[in-house]
């Protein structure tokens, strides 16, 4: 009996050891000095969640018989694809290319999952085609590194029900003070000026971004976590005040209830990014023609600042054997007019290149917005986004923890500032748990 037990244990350990060797072997990967074309044909895999991206890839495949790209689609990043990427990296079978939002790039970088595209000359030479702040998001603030080719951006503006504002003689707010004043008038009429989302922490980060705040800083030696910076606290107190006075609704965002609140005209405005134009269209179809877009309300009258919400890049994962071809494809996908036009048609992608913002399709009026040329507004906002905003290396966790606190605050338990304070502490302990150096 003893012997069999021991034999089983030995067999077990061997199996486990084999499994572990198999897992760790995939990790490696040499330095960036190999961005050179391969001999012969190349097949690349690319995982993305952009609807209809297959169309753009089909154009590439038709023109490049020697570099064929296979697209796999999945749910959006934080809804599961990032976790798949991390698992695939751990297992050593990640795709060659992947869709990664700017706020998640540091997370993949800290897990050592990304190739440095600055090794590829063509990519470096393309820097001046992109809006500087999008490039800076993908270079993680460095001068000689790049971890994704910027694809799109989410400059924020104010979507508002122009019909309701006009009928009730309420001026469209241009500052956050005016926004609160309008909120009181609208509440008196039985509506809400907007819905405060407890789950879109990246929207809240966009507000902080606009206010000139920072959540993270990286000096190379250690991270500074500053969720409770002066600007961040100012923004939190502003929204806390609106919540406490019942001037904003607090439906869970992206649900049927939330759509219903917009579709029924109960909620009048949405501080959202350029891609939000499509969300309103699909979520509140009964309000067609009644919406307009303005620049975001400012903290100082006459200010010219905008926040950003979302935007993603196409990154090349560690372990690829075809950095050159992958980078070439990523650059084409995000700079060529044919690809950008296709992406805009299928998914309303708003390009990160200066030339892309001049696409004919972005110069037209949009019926849902009463024929307004809404992209002109966002093109202006895009130039007002600060290039300095830095994302932390564990944003999925930071978002989840701050969101837990925001949800509690929305139901009257604590405040938004409390939520940020807790998120600050839990982010620091998450970093420490993985030995990521952090300044106390």
């Amino acid at each position, binding site marked *: 009996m003893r012997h069999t037990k021991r034999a089983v244990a030995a067999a077990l350990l061997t*199996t*486990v050891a084999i499994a572990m060797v198999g897992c760790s072997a995939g990790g490696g990967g040499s330095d960036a000095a190999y961005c050179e074309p391969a001999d012969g044909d190349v097949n690349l895999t690319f995982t993305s969640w952009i609807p209809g991206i297959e169309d753009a890839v089909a154009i590439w495949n038709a023109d490049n018989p020697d570099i064929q790209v296979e697209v796999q689609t999945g749910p959006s990043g934080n809804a599961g694809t990032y976790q798949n990427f*991390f698992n695939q990296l*751990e297992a050593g079978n990640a795709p060659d290319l992947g869709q990664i939002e700017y706020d998640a790039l540091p997370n993949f970088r800290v897990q050592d999952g990304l190739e440095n595209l600055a090794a590829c000359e063509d990519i470096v030479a393309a820097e001046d085609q992109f809006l500087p702040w999008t490039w800076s998001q993908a270079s993680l603030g460095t001068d000689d590194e790049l971890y994704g080719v910027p694809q799109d951006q989410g400059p924020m503006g104010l979507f508002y029900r122009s019909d309701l504002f006009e009928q009730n003689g309420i001026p469209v707010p241009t500052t956050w003070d005016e926004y609160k004043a309008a909120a009181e008038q609208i509440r008196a009429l039985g509506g809400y000026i907007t819905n405060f989302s407890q789950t879109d922490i990246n929207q809240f980060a966009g507000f902080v971004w606009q206010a000139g705040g920072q959540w993270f800083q990286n000096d190379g030696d250690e991270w500074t976590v500053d969720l409770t910076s002066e600007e961040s606290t100012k923004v939190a107190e502003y929204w806390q005040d609106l919540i406490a006075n019942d001037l904003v609704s607090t439906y869970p965002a992206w649900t049927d209830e939330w759509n*219903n609140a917009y579709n029924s005209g109960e909620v009048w405005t949405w501080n959202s990014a350029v891609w939000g134009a499509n969300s309103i269209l699909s979520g509140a179809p009964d309000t067609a023609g009644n919406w307009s877009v303005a620049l975001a309300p400012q903290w100082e009258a006459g200010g010219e600042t905008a926040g950003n919400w979302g935007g993603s890049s196409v990154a090349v994962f560690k372990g690829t054997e075809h950095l050159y071809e992958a980078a070439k494809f990523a650059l084409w996908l995000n700079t060529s007019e044919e690809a950008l036009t296709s992406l805009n048609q299928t998914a309303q992608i708003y390009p990160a290149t200066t030339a892309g913002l001049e696409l004919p399709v972005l110069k037209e009026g949009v019926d849902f917005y009463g024929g307004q040329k809404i992209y002109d507004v966002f093109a202006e906002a895009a130039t007002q986004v600060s290039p300095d905003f830095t994302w932390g*290396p564990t944003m999925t966790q930071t978002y989840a923890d701050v969101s837990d606190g925001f*949800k509690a605050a929305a*139901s009257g*338990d604590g405040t938004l500032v409390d939520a940020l304070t807790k998120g600050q502490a839990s982010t620091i302990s998450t970093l420490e748990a*993985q030995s990521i150096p952090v300044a106390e």
Partner: protein
Amino acid sequence: MTAPVTTTGASAAPRTSAGPSPAPRPRRRVQHPGAIIAFVAPFGLLYLLFYVVPIGYAIYQSLLVVEREGTFGEATEVFGGLTQYALVFQNEPFWTSVGRVLAFGVVQVPIMLGLALLFALLLDSPLLRGKKFFRLAFFVPYAVPGVIAAIMWGFLFSPNLSPFQELTRNVDFLGADLVLWSIANVVTWVFVGYNMLIIYSSLLAIPAEIYEAAVLDGAGQGRIAWSIKIPLVRPALILTAIFSIIGTLQLLAEPQVFRSFSSAVTSTYTPNMTIYATSSIPNVNLAAAFSVVLALATFILSFTFLRITRKKAEA
């Protein structure tokens, strides 16, 4: 992680009913060893590959810590002993969530099993008509996938979308005070029929002579149910209780779905949600340590329950 616990619970439960075990049989030479190996090997191999190895790997992962230099320094995994376990025991949200599911289990499991027993007794009673219909009707919710059931109930509880707005606008089923019990309602709805069926099949196995004897002694249906049926289905009740305890500790799908309906369900609402959130960071080592601790806790709880019920049976 459930499987070993489950199989142990399942095989251990019927043993309680066997009473004093029969005298050990004389040893016989094993016949057809080749055939036995051929039949056991497929199971053994799959069990090894999909249970033993992953569990071993998780335990191994939980003993590692990550080291790195600089903000984006390359990570190296080194042996860290019980470092991750120390973090687990310091993690307040995790232990809060354990307390939450225990409270959930203490209330929900007896209610669910009570209902399952009641339904099973009704189905077994000669007084009820339309048995086939009711047996199916009670069982149908179990055929609805848990996620779908949670979405459906989420809509029913919602203050603005529910067809019963008179009620849901006045009672906040999705608020911090009630949402746990709303989830309990979903779980009960799904699993009553399943547990009922296990108890009912156990009732069908009771020999008819016992009933005849009881009737001859002048026992009515109520008396038969209380004094004969319930004591005889005890093993089935213990089995379903253990399944339910395990299920409670591993709650994931229902609360995860309720997150889109209720702001009171946090990302660390149940132990499994904490594990899921930790693995998304990704911090696989800490997530592995959480999993191991949860598996041990489930194991201990199931066995404590078994021990207590067995002692009672012997007393």
